[in-house]
């Protein structure tokens, strides 16, 4: 019974470490997906001038998955069933800090509001800021992501040793 309890405690510590490390990883995934999303919009707006709704619906599934529902929430706004607010846009997206949410919100709010050259410039400006954030997130992930996981393992071992 004692060994089972120790195993469970160890697993819990490792899981906590893993969850923390995933938080950093997901932020990197989110910004990578957002950059792909913005680049694809920029190319398609310049080339096909297809409507936003169709462009977003046709995004690949992996990109959509890593946007944590932002695409769906924005589509709800485009179809007129919801207002565009930060709460509505980020309701399934726990990975962003408040200032980052504000920036991403402004990006989505700017979509579809100007002509091709204006829209392209606006997307370009946001892309620079997303790139900067991706670099930061990648550095954080490298520094703290693996560290959190390792700390989880060490904490688990520490608890096991103490209880033994």
């Amino acid at each position, binding site marked *: 019974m004692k060994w089972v309890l120790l195993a469970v405690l160890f697993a819990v510590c490792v899981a906590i470490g893993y969850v923390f490390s995933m938080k950093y990883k997901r932020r990197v995934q989110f910004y990578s997906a957002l950059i792909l999303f913005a680049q694809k919009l920029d190319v398609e707006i310049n080339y096909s001038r297809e409507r936003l709704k169709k462009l977003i619906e046709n995004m690949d599934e992996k990109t959509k998955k890593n946007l944590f529902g932002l695409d769906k929430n924005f589509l709800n706004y485009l179809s007129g069933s919801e207002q565009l607010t930060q709460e509505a846009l980020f309701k399934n997206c726990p990975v962003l800090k408040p200032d980052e949410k504000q920036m991403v919100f402004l990006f989505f709010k700017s979509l579809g*509001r100007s002509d091709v050259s204006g829209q392209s410039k606006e997307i370009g400006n946001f892309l620079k800021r997303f790139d900067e954030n991706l670099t930061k997130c990648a550095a954080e992930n490298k520094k703290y992501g693996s560290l959190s996981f390792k700390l989880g393992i060490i904490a688990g071992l520490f608890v096991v040793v103490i209880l033994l």
Partner: protein
Amino acid sequence: MLEGILPDKIFLPIKNKVGFSALNEIRFRADKPVILSQMGQKFFLSDLGKTRSLNEAIFATSSMIEEIIFRASECSIYSVSEQIKKGYIVTSNGVRIGIAGNEVEEGGLVKTMTGFSSVNIRIPHEVNNCSLKAYSSIVTTDGVLNTLVISPPGAGKTTFLRDFVCQLSQRNLPYNILVLDERGELNIGKGLGNYADVISFASKKNGFENGIRSMSPNIIVTDELGEWEDVEAVEYACNCGVNILASTHSDSMDSFLQKSAFKMLIDEKVFKRYIVLSMREGPGTLEGIYDENFSRIMRW
């Protein structure tokens, strides 16, 4: 039809109290009452439907107008910016929305339009068999004659052309018809039958050249000739042996004859039939059919 484009406060009274099928036009002007046009008559829109009382009228606002334009572009202004430069947007179901505001010009060309102050929504109607009275004058045993439909704005030119293309299709006449739908207004509703190819949103010049080269049409149907470039495109098509069915804005035959752009086509008797429509008994009233010498061959 306009669900998702008009705000609920406008859409619901029209839908529930007036009915879109009864309307020809809805006009919004910033800080002015919303005006409905029905069979040539004007009314204000109120919460209870049509009214003549200004106190009951619903007033449009600048933000309402901007939102209508944004929604009409399916939240993608960039996709209709070329149309906005020309002063209109056509929605995916063929509703034409005229726009007024501040034009931004650069090098003599319209760059864009900002500060939208008015919109004019024209509700398209499918009127089955509206071209039948004129059908036998246009289609002869030799084929379809070059025909120009003349009418003031909103008097049913586009509806006439659309129905005529359907009439040809219903009779299984083996013509390849190319419909040049420059503004996206012709190819709506139930479509244009089994023999029509459609090129949308191209200028007359590009559409005629590309369409003749790629689709080998027998007949080209197009809306709203007006500029020199359009006339040249018609000449080009005639030289290629393609028949033309087109329309143009004019209040009457007399005012049409004053249009200098058409002088060459008139002198060369390119069009064999002129069909004049008016609003006298509502949109689509057939006033007369004329031959190439402007002799009236039918009147009502």
